[in-house]
């Protein structure tokens, strides 16, 4: 079976009655890595949150479908079980719940009752991924994200990605706050997911992540829309020349939507 298709059409999203996204069109297929770039405040994270169903964001127009199914009709957990995953920029801290208990619950949530993952198999796979991501074993027994450093939280998000194996993943500024070593490890984890059945949308405003993860498509967001798309060469040009040339080309003066998102 080849991968899933996430299709975003004319997406308009508001937060507290303020429109942030003003008609986003984007299609991500299994096997493809897309990068969304753009300066701060142009709506990148809003797109990620709207796809996953963050309670504060309201979709006012447009559609999101996954393999033809209406994602906007689904609850957050249904979206996840349908195959979506969002590595969050600011993951919540869940006191009193260990990372491993949580992960096991999340894995089992995708499986039929009576077909739960065996403890042995779970531990084996968890240990394998912990090692791959160079994460200390004791993270599994620590409470989820509680007291984690910025870097630990990001690694934990990628650990979850590897454990849950979604069809389509959205990575929201997974590179922010990472030193170069951590960035390499996180990239290694993401690259390991590459395959026909896995599509990925990488949101970043630094090009440096893309030195480690080569995208197939690069999109630039400004003013709540995708204003330019291209291949990996677009990212290189952005690194060399910044965003000004795009603004000039398109006649944009203020690229933001007056909101830090």
């Amino acid at each position, binding site marked *: 079976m080849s991968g899933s298709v996430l299709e975003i059409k004319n997406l308009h999203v508001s937060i507290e009655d303020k429109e942030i996204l003003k008609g986003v069109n984007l299609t991500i297929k299994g096997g493809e890595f897309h990068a969304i770039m753009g300066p701060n405040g142009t709506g990148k994270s809003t797109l990620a949150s709207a796809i996953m169903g963050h309670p504060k964001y309201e979709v006012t127009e447009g559609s999101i479908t996954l393999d033809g199914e209406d994602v906007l009709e689904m609850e957050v*957990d249904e979206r*996840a079980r349908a195959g979506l995953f969002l590595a*969050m920029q600011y993951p919540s801290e*869940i*006191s*009193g719940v260990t990372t491993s208990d949580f992960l096991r*619950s*999340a894995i089992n949530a995708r499986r039929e009752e009576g077909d739960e993952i065996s403890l042995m198999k779970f531990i084996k796979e968890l240990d394998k991924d912990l090692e791959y991501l160079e994460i200390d074993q004791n993270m599994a027994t620590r409470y989820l994200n509680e007291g984690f450093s910025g870097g630990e939280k990001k690694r934990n998000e990628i650990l979850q990605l590897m454990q*849950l194996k979604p069809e389509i993943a959205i990575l929201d500024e997974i590179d922010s706050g990472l030193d170069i070593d951590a960035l390499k490890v996180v990239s290694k984890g993401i690259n390991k997911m590459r395959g026909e059945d896995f599509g990925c949308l990488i949101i970043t405003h630094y090009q440096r992540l893309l030195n480690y993860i080569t995208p197939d498509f690069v999109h630039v967001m400004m003013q709540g829309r995708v204003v330019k798309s291209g291949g990996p060469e677009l990212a290189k040009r952005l690194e060399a020349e910044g965003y000004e040339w795009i603004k000039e080309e398109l006649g944009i003066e203020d690229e933001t939507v007056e909101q830090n998102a």
Partner: protein
Amino acid sequence: MAVETKLPFDKEYIEQFSNTLNEPNWMRSLRLQALEQAETLEMPKPDKTKITRWNFSDFKHEYTTGETIPSLQELPDVLKDYFDQDNLPENLLIQRNHTVAYAALKDELKDKGVIFTDIFTAMKEHSDLVEQYFMNNAVSVDQNRLTALHAALVNGGAFIYVPKNVEIEEPLQVVFWQEDPELALVNHVIVVADENSKLTYVENYVSSNVEEQTVANIVEEVFAHNNAKISYGAVDNFAEGTTSYVNRRGVAYDNATIDWALGQMNEGNTVSENITHLIGNGSTSKANAVTVGRGTQIQNFTANIVQHGKGTDGFILQRGVMKEKATTIFNAIGKIEHGGSGSNSEQESRVLMLSADARGDANPILLIEEDDVTAGHAASVGRVDPLQMYYLMSRGLKKEEAERLVIHGFLAPVVSQLPIESVKKQLTQVIERKVY
């Protein structure tokens, strides 16, 4: 409804009850004197909860025996969940109604002079020792009408004594099972750790009366002598028909420790006070308590650590989950007396509300009469964080499962303190049952 002030039991009844148990004279006179005091004393007045209309005086009390339990492999169904069949306790007392149904204590501990028995046997075999501790230095008979009534009507309990320099690693466990649905349990527990000793005690209160109305009037007195360490766990699980008054009191002397982990899971109305006096220098106490309120039950929990000695440490942690129309008041009081220099007092009370109709209140109070001390408190009453729910659900967890994780996580700091694994598991099960 008028409040019944006349006591349901008279002097003759008490005398006869005491004679049936063949009690020492001191106990008989203590009962009779307490009965007199009960006539005039006032009911306890828990802060922010009115209990004047609660039933504390109408119940069945007469001496009622319970069948013995020949072996732990043949436990009655009600008790099965309380034990792990692969890891059965070696030191265990099961009280069924008013009699001992099962009793075991390792020979090694007997040889060391450890006393682990029901309160009436202790009164006969160790009369002086029991007399020394029974409502003398911790809970006084005349604290209020219910403590006096308690002294007059004690009909169950346990006595635990660990001699000097004896350290017990394995827990001592007692199950108080009120099998008769109408029977009141007036239970008295005394735990004494003599100098340089160490023990872990865990108790369970169990009943199944939903329709039948009765009362639990419980007084527990816990003494840690110099350098002694007591780890004290409890899971209270009286059914809906039982109105409970629970008075747990600790006294810690020099460098002694009393740590409480209380799972207060009653289904009926409950007033609970847990007061620890840190008398000695360098003594410490942690008072951890957890509750889940549901239905229309009203509960009031007071935890109070009174720090008399120098360099003492008192830490109160209360966590409650409220659903449906339940009401819970948490009072956490840290008091540092004059002279308690170099001491530290902390309180934290948090209530998680799962329903708009539930009521919860957390009142941390610091009373400090000394300069050179540190203290802090925190309290919160709140709902489940929608962003936590979003995060957990974004990984595929259904709403109920995500909420379940958040609730268990919220209660974990207290649950994890329970000293026996099987009791921890059992408390988790009770929480599960009460929350869903």
